[in-house]
């Protein structure tokens, strides 16, 4: 948390006041759609730290969300009441406007990274848990039968057969959860000054076009790269999927 704690000073726009003239020199006009000079001169001080914060926030939320969802998913196996209960809870979270969920925990945990992470993790449950449970239930009966024949206990079958076979479904959930968290973490910048959402909100206030465009493009590129990386990870850890097809 320490690298993020100083974020207030990383983003010098927080104080308000005249924003446009102080950045990128006088060559940047407000009307220009994209001013390269502003981008390069603010990369090190503004955009790169915001990008790093954004990645940091996303990774934490997805990892914690996945850990909780996996534990809950394994527990929910053969416990139908827990499965439907957890899905109902996760679905309910989705009906909450994201900003409100972030604000809800401010009285408890303050304007901190923890507050944001609680909200972000909450939004991963539906996507991850549902895909984990679906994947676990989709084990081919012949695989289960073969495992039983080899003398495996139900617990071993769950952990050594069903869980690995569920990886494609789980990874599909991780991909959607990741891009969702990236999107929601941007909104969260309205509560704490972290991530790529912060310069965007500043630019919405000031109307400085380059600052609207640059972090938005970074956000989109980040989401697309994250999604692509997860596809590659999935292919690497599930070689049998392609082996079966070819």
């Amino acid at each position, binding site marked *: 948390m320490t690298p993020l704690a100083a974020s207030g000073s990383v983003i010098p726009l927080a104080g308000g006041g005249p924003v446009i003239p102080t950045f990128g020199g006088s060559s940047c006009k407000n009307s220009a*759609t994209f001013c390269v000079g502003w981008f390069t001169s603010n990369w090190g001080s503004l955009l790169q730290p915001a990008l790093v914060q954004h990645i940091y926030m996303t990774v934490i939320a997805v990892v914690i969300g996945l850990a909780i969802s996996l534990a809950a998913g394994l527990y929910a196996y053969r416990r139908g009441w827990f499965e439907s209960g957890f899905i109902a809870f996760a*679905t*309910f979270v*989705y*009906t*909450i*406007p*994201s*900003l*409100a969920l972030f*604000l*809800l925990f*401010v*009285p408890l945990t303050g304007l901190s990274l923890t507050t944001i992470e609680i909200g972000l993790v909450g939004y991963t449950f539906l*996507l991850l848990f*549902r*895909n984990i449970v*679906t994947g676990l*239930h989709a084990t081919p009966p012949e695989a289960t039968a073969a495992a039983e024949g080899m003398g495996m206990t139900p617990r071993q079958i769950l952990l050594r057969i069903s869980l690995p076979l569920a990886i*494609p*479904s789980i*990874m*599909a*959930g991780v*991909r*959607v959860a990741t*891009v969702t968290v*990236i*999107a929601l973490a*941007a*909104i969260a910048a*309205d509560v704490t000054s972290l991530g790529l*959402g912060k310069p*965007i*909100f500043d*630019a*919405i206030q000031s109307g400085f*076009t380059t600052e*609207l*465009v640059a*972090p*938005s*493009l970074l*956000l*989109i590129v980040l*989401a*697309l790269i*994250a*999604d692509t990386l997860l*596809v590659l990870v*999935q*292919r690497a850890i599930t070689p049998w*999927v392609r082996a079966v097809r070819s």
Partner: protein
Amino acid sequence: MHTFAQIGDFFQTHPGMLLSETANQTELCVVALAVAFVIAFPIGVVVGHLHRWSFLAINGGNVLRSLPTLAIIALGIALYGGGYINILVALVVLVVPLILTNSYVAVDGVDPGMVEAARGMGLTWWQIIVRVEIPNAVPLVMAGVRTASVYVIAGAYVGAFAGYDGTLGDIITNQGSYKLAGVLAATAVSIVLAVIGELIFAGVQRLLVPKGLKISAGRRGRGAAEAAVVPETAAG
């Protein structure tokens, strides 16, 4: 407990505002859902029917899904300004992938034997789509629409960031003026709205699903329709 009393007070002091914003937000959401459906459903059906160009539905859906709403709003302000069109575009982009993927997966997954039988009976390709494939796709398509309605209603408040006044976002994004109590009151209204939307579409789904399909669904077991909201086929 103090806050709860304040939330109650907010309902009593701002009933007109909450009501008009709820109505306005509902209208925005209905339009966004309708536009998204008109764009996504036909593409999903055609791609699913042809069993070709599936990369269009899958990868197109994945790319759209990756676009963060705030980025679309900000780029929109830069390119075509803030306001109604801005938030409408953002909400449509938010839910097109859901409806597109589900429509494609649903039609693509219709029993080939059933389609063959229909062809053998002399049905044209158009009749096959309208009388065989779409009726069979209803449960999955509607599952997508239901989820999309929740996304749109819960997400409509970002209209306040997009320069569009009149959604509950005016209160939710303005804690300075309305205090946490006001934010939570507007949030409660938004949640109720999302739940009502979901229930309405669940009812519509029940009306639209052909009788024969309900019988066979009972045998197939639960959950199958909801699960495919997330595309397991995405990696292909």
